[in-house]
């Protein structure tokens, strides 16, 4: 349950603690919310915790931390490698993913996960970006489309590390092979801190739309992959301008769906953040 993170995970300090070492029985639990605050289309810089107004299930909360840029990114690139992704589309995917890797900073990490009917971790989450570059060159399209399974696996790769997770999902089709259902994976997304930005050329990306909205990301529906590099880079740019806000929930029941409202005090800001989180089974 990543949405409720331990206070021991020192936000803003760049500490990387393996999530499987985490202990969920701790009494002090913090909720992390990735927030993009813009004014007239431009990110608002320099906000402090007290600038954020957070309401959890109708109960105002006090933001304790609001980190910006200091935390390294974990970028999980999840690419559709079903049989329909070939030729020019594959070239564009490789180029766009390479562009993202080249724009990452020293402390950032990346992983590459591809899917057809199967899900494959081609390059695990690591700061050694050459491994991801190499894996990108090796992938070959084949088979059906297990988009839902892969989206879940991508979230788990994100949860394997405490860094800020940006998951970029590309698919050109509908799911025809997953075992997991969209409902179960959307449910898992409500418990996850990963922010999913997705790109679809399928014309009917209802699962990706919901997944992106639930995690506070965005869905981009495109007809051609020609400008995919520009799109991927704009996603990375937007994500870098997000604040990671954390608070310890007060006065709300622990389990169940927590509806979140996030605003910036005293500003006419547009705020993009996940609409809530789920705790308990």
């Amino acid at each position, binding site marked *: *349950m*990543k949405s409720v993170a331990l206070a021991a995970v020192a936000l803003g300090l760049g500490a990387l603690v393996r*999530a*499987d070492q*985490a202990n*969920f029985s701790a009494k002090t639990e913090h909720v992390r919310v990735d927030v993009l605050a813009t004014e007239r289309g431009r990110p608002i810089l320099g906000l402090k915790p007290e600038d954020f107004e957070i309401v959890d299930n109708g109960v105002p909360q006090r933001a304790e931390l609001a980190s910006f840029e200091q935390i390294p990114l974990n970028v999980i690139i999840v690419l559709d490698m*079903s*049989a*329909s992704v070939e030729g020019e589309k594959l070239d564009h995917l490789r180029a766009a993913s390479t562009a993202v890797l080249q724009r990452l900073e020293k402390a950032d990490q990346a992983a590459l*996960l591809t899917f*057809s*009917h*199967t*899900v*494959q*971790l081609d390059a695990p989450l690591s700061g050694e970006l050459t491994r991801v570059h190499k894996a990108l060159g090796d992938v070959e399209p*084949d*088979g*059906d*489309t297990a988009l839902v*399974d892969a989206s*879940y*696996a991508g979230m*788990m*790769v994100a*949860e*394997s590390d405490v860094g800020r997770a940006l998951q970029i999902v590309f698919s050109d*089709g*509908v*799911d*025809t*092979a997953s*075992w*997991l259902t969209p409902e*179960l*994976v959307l*449910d*898992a997304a409500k*418990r996850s801190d990963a922010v999913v930005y997705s790109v679809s050329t399928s014309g*009917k990306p209802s699962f990706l739309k919901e997944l992106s909205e639930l995690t506070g990301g965005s869905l981009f529906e495109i007809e051609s992959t020609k400008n995919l590099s520009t799109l991927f880079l704009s996603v990375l740019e937007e994500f870098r301008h997000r604040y990671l806000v954390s608070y310890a929930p007060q006065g709300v029941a622990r389990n169940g769906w927590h509806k979140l409202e996030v605003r910036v005090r005293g500003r006419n800001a547009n705020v993009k953040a996940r609409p809530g989180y789920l705790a*308990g*089974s």
Partner: protein
Amino acid sequence: MFVAVAVVVSVLSTAAPQPKADQYAWLERLERWVTAVADHEPGGLDDSVTETAMLSRGDLQTLWLDTAALLKLMQCGGVSRCRISVKLPSDKSAQPWRRVDKTAAERLERLVREVATRFHGINGLVKRGAVLHTDVAILGADITPPANPPVVSNVVPDQVVLRFKDGRQQSYEHNSVHWEFARMLLDHVSRPAADDMVRAWYHATVAWLQHKENLYLAHLEHGRQIFPNDAELLFQLGCMHETYASVGVQTVMESLDHRQRRFFDVQGRRAELEDAESFLKKAVAAQPSFADANLHLGRVLGLRGRHADAVAALDAAKAATDDPLLLYYAELFLGAEHEALRHFDEARQAFEHAASLYPAAQSPYLALSQLAHRQGDRAGALRAIDSVLQRPSKDEADDPWWIYTLSHGRDADARLRKVYERVARDPS
């Protein structure tokens, strides 16, 4: 994987007169066909298969009529004793057959006598003929007949097949007319509903078509008209509707415009699942220990949100089989149903059992990871997903979930072999 859906799109046009120079071409074709049937080794890609596969659609259309007429002649005892009319599959009314001159009549009489001797009657001819055309449809699929001469008659229903893959249209093409031909022949078996070979042929060919993901509803429906309470055919019908309800089929149907869509017998997901449940329940009623039918019924009930009923059907499937493949599916589906009922311990046990049956499969570990994540066990979720990501095999044999929609035709080849052996042993 390809899936095909068949639809009747064209019907009868009346026969045109033959040019004088070719006035006996139809008869020679009929005689050669009888020889091909007699010479064919069931299950083999021999000269009979090649020659029959090389017939153009126009030739096949004519041969269809003439074969039907030959069978009538055999029934009534010769050319001089009966007036022949041919009932066309695309038209309920009977059409008069061609006029024959004295030479043709004599040759036909000889052919009738020859068939009676070589095949020990009509049953022998039509059963061996059906096997020949089955082999042409299966083994001769890659043989390209010559470009069609002008079609003189269009008596065989034309089945257009929409092929698609991964939820996308690939192409339109003609389905093999040889399936139609084989069915027409077997319709002439005396009392087909009481004939074991005819029943076994439908079981085998339906399984083969399903295994190739050729969703040929007309073939299955024709078999069911002959054997209305046959558990196997009811089961396969249920499976076909279950597949029709799948995302892949539904997505392709949604991509068609209204005019194209009405040619296909595919309803919306909910209606297809209702039909699937109905047929699978009938199959189970006809044969309660039918493991495959209970398994698919459980899956369909689960998809319809009837989780407790699904568990009962899946438990019945488990109790009726020791086949690891069916047990794998049953455990995987049971896990999902127990999870839906919030029986988390039972769900985990079922997924773990599925994983133990197919250790290289991804699906049970995805399920275990998701279940642990849901229960707040992040370490367990990560351990299970690690098992998934350590299993990057794309081999479909490693995770039978990927071939679930083919699994009910898995023994098609063995069934076909039995049909061939039966016909070789006792053609009548």
